[in-house]
Structure formats: structure tokens, C-alpha cells
């Protein structure tokens, strides 16, 4: 079976449902807004279907989607409207109807602490700790050097330590 036919065997819809969570969470972690995350999710998968790319494997597809998500959120973050909007606090919609979240102060603490970081630290921390990406992968995804990523990780951790008492980092 050729690579092209393999690609067409993969339902676009199946791919969307498989990666929607990942795209949405990254979009939210970068914008701090569920509304923007909604828009970005749509935009990312529209770009996905329009690009109609051939992927070497699932990792390749995942990396591409993450990169597109970062690019899409960049557009949102640099838009005239968003330049004047404070994203330091997550909006109140996240988990508003989730009793488990309400019950857990830890969730809100970590979320608030993360979302209070400047965007570049927030994204780096998120990709490293949540998506389990390596420094090299993050550098490629966000379009910066590995040294920059390491610096951002280090500074991000320091900032989080100040905000979250007793937080421990694996790395």
C-alpha cells in the first residue's frame, strides 16, 4: 500500500478526534481563553485538511499539528484585539460545570500559576511537562533554539516555585 493511499485511509475526522484534546489544551495554555481555543481548534484542523500532507508516522503528524497550533495562537496573540487583552488569568469557563475541578484547589492553583506566567514560559512548560516533549522538539515546534527553550524552562520553573509553595519538578 503506498504512502498516499495510507494517508487517504486515515479518516480526517478520526485524526481530528484523536488530536482535538491536544490541540485544544495547547491553544488554551497559550491564550488562556476557551473561546480562542475553540476558534484555534477549528483553524488548526481546517489547515490540516487543506494542507493534505503526507506524514511519515504519527509522531510526524502530531508534531505538525502542534506546530500549526503554535502558529495559529501566535496569530491570535498578536492580533490587535488580543494585544490589549490580559490573558494572565484563565477565564471562568474552564471546568465551570466540573465538580471535581471545583473540589480541587490544587487544580486551580496550578492552572492559575501556569497561566500567570508570560506566554513563552507557559508554552514551554506546558509542552515539556504535559506533552512530554524534548527540548529539541519544543525548539522546533515554537521556532526557537534549544538554548532558549532550556532558559525558558529554567526561568518558568523558578517563577512557578515562587507562586506554588512546595512544588517539586521532576527535571
Amino acid at each position: 500500500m503506498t504512502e498516499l493511499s495510507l494517508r487517504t485511509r486515515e479518516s480526517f475526522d478520526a485524526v481530528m478526534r484523536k488530536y482535538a484534546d491536544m490541540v485544544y489544551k495547547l491553544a488554551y495554555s497559550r491564550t488562556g481563553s476557551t473561546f480562542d481555543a475553540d476558534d484555534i481548534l477549528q483553524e488548526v484542523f481546517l489547515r490540516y485538511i487543506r494542507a493534505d500532507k503526507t506524514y511519515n508516522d504519527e509522531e510526524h503528524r502530531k508534531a505538525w499539528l502542534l506546530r500549526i497550533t503554535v502558529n495559529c495562537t501566535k496569530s491570535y496573540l498578536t492580533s490587535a484585539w488580543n494585544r490589549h487583552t490580559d490573558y494572565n488569568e484563565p477565564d471562568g469557563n474552564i471546568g465551570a460545570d466540573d465538580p471535581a475541578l471545583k473540589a480541587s484547589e490544587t487544580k486551580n492553583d496550578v492552572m492559575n500559576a501556569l497561566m500567570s506566567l508570560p506566554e513563552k514560559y507557559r508554552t514551554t512548560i506546558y509542552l515539556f511537562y504535559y506533552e512530554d516533549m524534548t527540548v529539541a522538539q519544543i525548539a522546533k515546534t515554537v521556532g526557537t533554539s534549544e538554548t532558549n527553550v532550556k532558559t525558558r524552562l529554567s526561568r518558568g520553573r523558578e517563577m512557578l516555585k515562587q507562586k506554588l509553595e512546595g512544588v517539586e519538578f521532576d527535571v
Partner: protein
Amino acid sequence: MFKEELNIAFESVRPSPELLDRVSAMMSEEAARKKPPLRMTAVKYAGIAAAVALAAGGTVMLFGSTDGGVKTAEAQLSASKSFAPDNSVSEQEMIQDIAEAAPAAEEAAPAAGEAAPAADEAAFAAEEVAPQAKEEAAEPEAPPAETQTTSAASTKEISDEAPSMKNTDAVDARIMSVEDSISEENEDFSDDRFEEADFAAAVAPNIDDYSGSAADADSLISITSINIFDTIPPELAALIDCNELNEWYGSFGENDGTIESYQNLYTFIKRFGISEETLRQALGDRLTEEQINALYSGTADDIRSAFGL
């Protein structure tokens, strides 16, 4: 540990099922509209172009070459569509015709290639006879001479009838400019899958594989690449609960190439027990009898054959 806490914090950050359905519908719509460009270099695929013209009921003029092969072919579709000024056919329409006739072209291309040397020989023979013919008939446009100077004559002929189709280079240049604009749009993520060398293997087989073909102002020659078998249409997906549907989508492992190993109409019908009647109501106008029969009473091979997999 921060990692665990972060996981917990993001647990509830997820798109709503309604949003997923909306995106799904949007993607289906986009997929239906999507027409990836079929890239054709006229010179390289002269055999195909010539066969297309034949398939369209037109005439083909073969250019003789020193190595006995076919260098270029000017496809003249005048038999099916007139290039007369009062009923002129645009370059785009002509290329659309080529796209529609492409499957036949694919089959006829080898024959055209094989016929080329014979055509060359005929041209050569005609060339030898030409002076005699000229003397006897005293006609400046004797057939042998025309054959000998096919390039100039045919170019002139086509130029007179369809100014936009002066020669294949012009078409090629137009196609390449469209390719350039497409690649600029996707600059960051462009890939090599449509390299010319892979053209026949990667693109041509799909001409037969997928239902429907179309062309518009955005793509000179195009085909739709989404097979209905591989996409669960929204009208069918709407019959199933979102959570169940998501669970089903996530239940597949690696696609090993068998029909049962990935999300498609067959596995969807099996999993959710969609009856033939329900399927007909939802998708009756988009599926043929053969496809429906194959889904419900055929073997995997029948299904592959019915859907052109």
C-alpha cells in the same frame, strides 16, 4: 510532583462534543470541496496528453525526434470542442477535459508511446515522398510537408484557433505558476509528494480511486481525494451518541491495511449495527447499489472493489 498536578489541572480542559461535531462537519464540507491539484508537466507526460486527446475524440500530432521517441505532443481537442473564435474554449476548460479523460489517458498512454516510433517512421517516409507529391500536386501544404514541419504548422494552427494554447510550454508555464502559488501558500509545510518522478505512481492511480472529479478557477486540473468509504459522513455520525462515537474513534490501533483495522463505513456499520434501510435513508444518493450490497453481504474484496480501494 508538578507534572501530575499539571495533568490534573488540564484534565477538564477539553473541547466540547458540540465543538468537535462542528469541526467534524466543517472538515467534511472542506474535504468535499477540496480538490488537490494534479500536477502535469506537458512535455514529460506527452504520451498521456496525446492519449487524452484521442480519448476525447480529437487528433494528435506527433513531433518527430532524432531518437525516434516522442518529444512532445500537441493535443488538439477540436473534434469534441471547437476552438473557433465564435465558440472558443478556454485553456482551463480544455485542461478540465483532459482531467476528465485522464483515466482513459492512463490506459492509452503506453499505446501512444509504442505508436510513437511508428509515427516517426511514417513521418520519415512521408518526408521522402513529399517532394514528389509537391511536384505532382503542386500543393504547398502537402501532407508530408505538414508532417515534417508539424511543430510550426500545428503551433500556428492552434495559435490561430486558440490563442491561449500556442504550445505546450505555455500550458506548462501556466501550470507551474499555479503550482508556485500553491507552494507559496503552504511554504512552511510543503513536501515532495508530488515530485514529478512520483507523479504516475502517486497521483495517477487515484484518478480511478475516488468518486467525482471537478475543476475550478483555483486548480487547473484537480480531483477529489476523499473516498466516502473512509469518511463517516456527518448525517450518519449524527445518528450516534457523541461519546460513543468518540470511544469508537479511539478504539482502533494501528492500521494494518485491512478493512477492519480503521475507521470506515464498514467498521462503523458493524459497530453501531446500522441497518441497510438506515444507511439508504442517510446516504442512499451517495452510494451505489453495488457499494451497499458489498457492505452488507460482500467480502472484504467485494468492498474494496465496490469502493475502488
